[in-house]
């Protein structure tokens, strides 16, 4: 029975998994570099330009530095949990990429290979589940550090992520009512035919965007690591590559949430809305490359937006953060959901009350 499994399929998926994981790691590396460069450019500086031409080897140098630094594990901490924390953060950051459709399909020696690791029928909910697991990485690590500042940072992260997950989920429900499917692949296919979902759900997108900023612990919501209040926040006690994992997982999260946002609201690998690209008569492989390029262009824009906002807007105060989450975003998302539901009902009724 075990041998009856399609061996080629397993191999194909394994290769895809390795490629996606490696790609998200490399992209996250260069997002750290891009962040420093963008910060510098927005502040009229030059940014890192010493390692390699234009400084493109800077992330490698940063990674090497982290690897060679001394590894310190606090004496009074739970060693297993202390190591589990950053590992969990990294794991949950990478796992999201499994359900993202990176492109349509490619023909590989007569074999049609889908550019999605798993087309799960609960796709977007899977993403949500993994994201909600992400908070454990921070919480476990912060508790295991046995440090008050770490614990405070972890508690801040937990309450912030739970609060914003609600608004995020409700804004998503409105989107799901429009699309009528949970599968990310099907959403992209729908958007290829008609408008991008952003046109149907502008308010939902805005709420989703704000919540994505909060979920990624990015400025203006980076209170868990507010260095002027909490030293380093949840990673105060971490050093060496374990600290690197925490920092890295933040950037992978940024990348993944950019991918999810462009897939949900901006047509994923769709290049032009309302236009059937297959009319160009290109082969499937070329279409896949163009699609991947289109997706990456959107992702780059969102990543730039993340950085742009970070270097423009100062940090919230904690009560302002909670006010925004509970008193503004959640009611707004609820109203958005109700209006969307009413409009859909009206439409089903041929615009009669």
């Amino acid at each position, binding site marked *: 029975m075990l041998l009856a499994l399609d061996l080629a399929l397993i191999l194909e998926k394994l290769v895809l998994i390795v490629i996606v994981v490696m790609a998200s790691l490399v992209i996250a590396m260069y997002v750290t570099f891009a962040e420093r460069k963008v910060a510098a*450019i*927005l*502040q*009229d*500086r*030059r940014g890192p*330009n010493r390692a390699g031409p234009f400084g493109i080897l800077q992330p490698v140098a940063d990674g090497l530095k982290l690897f060679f630094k001394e590894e310190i594990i606090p004496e009074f901490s739970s060693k297993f949990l202390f190591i589990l924390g950053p590992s969990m953060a990294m794991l949950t950051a990478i796992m999201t990429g499994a359900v993202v459709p990176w492109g349509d399909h490619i023909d590989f020696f007569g074999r049609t290979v889908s550019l999605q690791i798993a087309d799960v029928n609960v796709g977007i909910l899977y993403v949500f589940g993994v994201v909600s697991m992400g908070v454990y990485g921070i919480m476990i690590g912060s508790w295991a550090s046995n440090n008050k500042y770490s614990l405070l940072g972890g508690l801040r992260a937990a309450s912030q992520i739970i609060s914003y997950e609600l608004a995020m989920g409700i804004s998503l429900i409105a989107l799901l009512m429009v699309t009528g499917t949970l599968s990310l692949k099907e959403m992209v296919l729908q958007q290829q035919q008609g408008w991008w979902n952003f046109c149907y759900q502008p308010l939902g997108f805005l709420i989703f965007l704000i919540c994505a900023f909060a979920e990624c612990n990015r400025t203006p919501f980076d209170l868990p690591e507010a260095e002027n209040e909490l030293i380093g926040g949840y990673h105060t006690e971490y050093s060496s590559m374990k600290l690197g994992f925490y920092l890295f997982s933040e950037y992978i999260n940024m990348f993944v949430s950019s991918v999810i946002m462009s897939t949900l609201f901006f047509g994923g690998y769709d290049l032009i809305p309302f236009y059937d690209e297959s009319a160009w008569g290109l082969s499937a492989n070329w279409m896949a490359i163009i699609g991947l390029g289109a997706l990456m262009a959107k992702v780059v824009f969102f990543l730039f937006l993340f950085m*742009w*906002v970070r*270097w*423009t*807007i100062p940090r919230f105060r904690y009560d302002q953060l909670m006010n925004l989450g509970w008193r503004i975003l959640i009611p707004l998302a609820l109203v958005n959901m109700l209006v969307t539901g009413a409009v859909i009902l009206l439409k089903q009724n041929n615009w009669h009350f």
Partner: protein
Amino acid sequence: MQALTNRAKQVERQPMSFLERLYLVAIFKGMLITFRHIFKKKPTINYPEKKRPFSPVFRGLHILNRDAEGRENCTACGLCAVACPAEAITMEAAERQEGEEGLYKEEKYAAKYEINMLRCIFCGLCEDACPKDAIYLSETFAPADYQRKQFIYNKQELLIPHPVKEPEAYKKALGNRVPREKINPAI
């Protein structure tokens, strides 16, 4: 109260309108400001590749001067040490022996001449005090070092290269400076 100028501006403190309370407009405006900075000229200079030109009155590292034949100008009169407000200069005088006329310009010369660069404030008073144009402040600055004692520069480190024996190094050390004897040959 009578205002001194007409530039004073009354601050408006009205309750914020709904659009203002949304903050979205303000955020967008702020982001436009940062976006505009992308296209601004960067004031940073890539240091080792590109160096900012010093002004002609820049006071950098000291140089003990020689004349055109390569003889040391310094006569160890001690005026620079007296003028030094930071007491960074110490010297020992010696008498010129027979056959040393090619080395030293006058009958007396400095056998030992030290400047403590950690004490020095680069005020340039030593240059002003010197009657023989023997010391001047160049357009370089003291490089970093690991030990304090490395910052006490001795005579060999301060002396300008020999203009006849090493003309290229001499020219390089001289830089854009015009020797004072050319401006005022009376010295």
